[in-house]
């Protein structure tokens, strides 16, 4: 909730150069942006190629096991 009051103690409503320098930080934004946009690693069950490869390897191992 915003309430306007009269500026009795003549508080400056413009930042100083020092305050601007202190708050200016692109690396922080870039870091937050990376965090926001970075996708998690694709789970195995959603990657058909990897899934087929693993199933094939498992079938081969099973066949070799049954053969022996």
């Amino acid at each position, binding site marked *: *909730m*915003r*309430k*306007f*009051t*009269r*500026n*009795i103690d003549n*508080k*400056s*409503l*413009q*930042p100083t150069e020092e*305050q*601007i320098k*202190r*708050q*200016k*930080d*692109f690396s*922080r*934004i*870039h870091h*937050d*942006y*990376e965090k*926001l*946009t970075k996708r998690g690693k694709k789970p195995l069950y959603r990657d058909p190629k990897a899934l087929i490869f693993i199933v094939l390897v498992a079938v081969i191992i099973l066949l070799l096991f049954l053969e022996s």
Partner: protein
Amino acid sequence: MKFKRNIKNLSESEIIELAKKESYYFGILYDVYFEQIFRFVFSRLGGNESIAGDVTQETFLKAMANIQKYEDRGFPFSSWLYRIAQNEVSMYFRKSKKDNFVPVEIEKLNDLKDEITGDAGISEVEIDHLISMINELEASHLDIIELRFFQQMSFKEISEIYNISEANAKMRTYRILEKLKSNWGTK
């Protein structure tokens, strides 16, 4: 090492197009516009440095995340940033449970009173009366009064922030002034 183009020769619209493809280029826009957006947010929040810093960072983060959606419609790029900043400031006030006191200079109240009554000069009683009247306005009306009289923005700048025509910005402002005018004598 990535090859970076010579940015000195690029126009702003070219930098925006590059920023859409690679986040590194957004840093150039950040460098150019940080100060003016921070000043705007700082004064809207009544000079609270740390909150103004956070709101400004959030503004640029949203701009960076949504730059793909930015379209050049003939308005300056800064008006798009002001629009995001304006929304972020409003959101901050909406979410905040406590009252946030924003100091206003007497000269600016005087300008507003002058516009309402047509009389120059403002007494102590009139200051209190005017402040209580504007504090009763709904948030969207308060925003326009603040932008026009306390931030001293032109109708053109206001129209760019709201993405409306200049005539519409004027009409909205004068309607609110009419409302204030009719309430001025009733209390």
